[in-house]
């Protein structure tokens, strides 16, 4: 299994500061059960001194998620709010003696929870701002631009694979590959301009060449999954289709899927197609339940197989986020 440090194991087996914090005046909640990790960070701040006097956590997630959450509480206790604002996800990983690269997203989640808890304490409207200032990039794992920006800058990420390892973005359906690519290139370019990154290290849009760059900051080998290439190949292999042709193929594919859903007491309807986003309406037994995400995934895979290019199937109710 994973090569966890002794400290990670210790913080997992004997987590410090687990449970509910009575009298917390700052609470940050991030993640979701469908992503496989979620964290509630509770802090108690002395209003006069602005010192975090106590912190506790509740975490749903793997060993390193629990260890990262516990480490985070240890790190923040005794710090002022201003000091806490300077903590990075790398600080959490360092505190634990390093995390496997694939698990860095656990430290990122801790960092996100801290930002949310501080915002909750100070009354800043952070979470909403986040979604407005930055669009949701990866819908599968709820990664938005703000989070991507912090992870890329904080860890000097220069490849798509690293972005996935640190934030999970692009780890599932891969349709956001192009958006991640653009965003990563933009952020790296900005970092070069600010003197934070050497120009030759920066990810260049369309440049898989940068994928060979060594992993900064993280210890151990990076295991690069060839998802970026796969997505590209699918795109390259796709025959040029007019919009109308594409919509017709999608419509036909959905018609073929309907009997399966109807057999389960549900149904599906095509609402709109916008670029590579396919908006559908699920009805009946398929709609509204947790499993609708799974159904959506099935529909998406079927469409991708048919059309031969990455597509994102989105419930039309969620259109406002798209």
């Amino acid at each position, binding site marked *: 299994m994973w090569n966890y440090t002794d400290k990670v194991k210790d913080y997992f*087996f004997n987590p410090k500061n687990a449970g509910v914090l009575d009298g917390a005046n700052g609470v940050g*909640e991030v993640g979701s059960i469908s992503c*496989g990790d979620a964290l509630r960070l509770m802090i108690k701040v002395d209003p006069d001194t602005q010192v975090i006097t106590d912190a506790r956590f509740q*975490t749903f997630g793997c*060993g390193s998620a629990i260890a990262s959450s516990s480490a985070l509480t240890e790190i923040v206790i005794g710090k002022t709010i201003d000091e806490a604002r300077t903590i990075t996800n790398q600080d959490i990983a360092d505190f634990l003696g390093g995390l496997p690269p*694939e698990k860095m997203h656990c430290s990122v989640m801790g960092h996100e929870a801290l930002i949310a808890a501080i915002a909750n304490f100070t009354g800043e409207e952070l979470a909403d701002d986040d979604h407005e200032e930055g669009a949701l990039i990866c819908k599968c794992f709820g990664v938005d631009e703000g989070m991507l920006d912090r992870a890329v800058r904080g860890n000097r990420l220069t490849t798509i694979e690293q972005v*996935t390892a640190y934030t999970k973005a692009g780890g599932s359906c891969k349709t956001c590959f192009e958006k991640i690519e653009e965003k990563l290139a933009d952020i790296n370019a900005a970092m070069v301009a600010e003197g934070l990154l050497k120009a030759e290290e920066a990810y260049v849009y369309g440049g898989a060449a940068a994928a060979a760059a060594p992993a900064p900051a993280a210890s151990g080998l990076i295991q690069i999954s060839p998802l970026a290439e796969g997505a590209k190949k699918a795109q390259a292999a796709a025959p040029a289709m007019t919009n109308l042709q594409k919509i017709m193929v999608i419509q036909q594919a959905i018609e073929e899927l309907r009997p399966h859903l109807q057999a389960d007491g549900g149904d599906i309807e095509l609402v709109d197609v916008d670029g590579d986003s396919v908006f559908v309406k699920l009805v009946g037994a398929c709609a509204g339940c947790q499993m609708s995400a799974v159904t959506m995934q099935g529909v998406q895979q079927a469409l991708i197989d048919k059309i031969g290019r990455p597509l994102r199937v989105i419930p039309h109710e969620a259109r406002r986020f798209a």
Partner: protein
Amino acid sequence: MSGPTGIYLDNNATTRVDPRVVEEMLPFFSEHFGNPSSIHSFGAEVGGKMREARARVAALLGAAHDTEIVFTSGGTESNNTAILSALKVAPDRREIITSAVEHPAVLEVCRHLAKHEGYVLHIIPVDKQGRLDIDAYKAALSPRVAVVSIMWANNETGTIFPVEALADMAKEHGILFHTDAVQAVGKVPLRLAETNIDMLSLSGHKLHAPKGVGALYVRRGIRFRPLLRGGHQERERRAGTENTTAIIGLGKAAELALVHMDQENTTVKALRDKLEKALLETVGHCFVTGNVHDRLPNTTNIAFEYIEGEGILLFLSRVGIAASSGSACTSGSLEPSHVLRAMDIPFTAAHGAIRFSLSRETTEAEIDQVIAAVPEIIGRLRSLSPYWDNGAPRAEAFKPEYA
């Protein structure tokens, strides 16, 4: 070197090589080390022993002829060989049928063929109990289909598919039928001679033989194209000097599997049932995934809600219990297993699914220890979970900023 100790309930991942198998293999490393193709006496004994191994495997499968057995490097090679061969012998048929819950050694091969070689792929879905959608299967059958590859038993849930009936239906359309029986062989009595199954994959290391050896059953009379060329071995169906020691080990393991078949379906099954019943009763908010009415006797896959599988495995491992999980975090991917997703298991549970897979070596004392250890571990992790409060789930109370 002393090995790890503890309770091994991960036999669907791999099994311990039976000491009787080791004993059978030993002389063939440095005494009878000859090449079975050679004329001289160093190879003589080997050839006879290989024939015996082939007969033993054929007996375990209930095959009509020993020559129907082709030794390979394992399940993955057998699956690849079977599918690719079936496509090559029927160049006019451009469609493939498989199921949504196959092992990657089938599913990824089929996906690759669909994506890069233009085959049309029918992936037959399963229901929430992991049962194959027979109507969808029937609908996909046609003379355009070259091969059906559907597993006998699922490695994660143990669910058994009615492959004999599926093979009958495929035959009506002249389709070659292959089954990945890696998990079924040795646990389920087989009589291939009486079925319409054309090809079947098995793997040594799932039945107490070494890793890196397996076999492909190829029914006599069906057309076949080898994957590996360049030698006359295995009647030119698999070139390369044979892994003689491993094949001899597989032969012994097959013989033992047949001897112990009853035990799998009585003793092992009873222990599995005891474990499952006890955990369902004591833990709460957990359920068995897969088809409980038709599954392997040694496997139970239990989904513990509101916690994540890796944490459970780490705690189990600390008390010396080895199991495995369909959770994303242990596999390095970011999502729960494709098998659980295909079954529509809600995310609240899929992340916490644990597979316990027993073997004929599992003892009742071991099962009692697991029964004693698990509830506390689950309770501990739930006490850390934001979706859990004072012994009850409270998913609705936790609404994170982004989801």
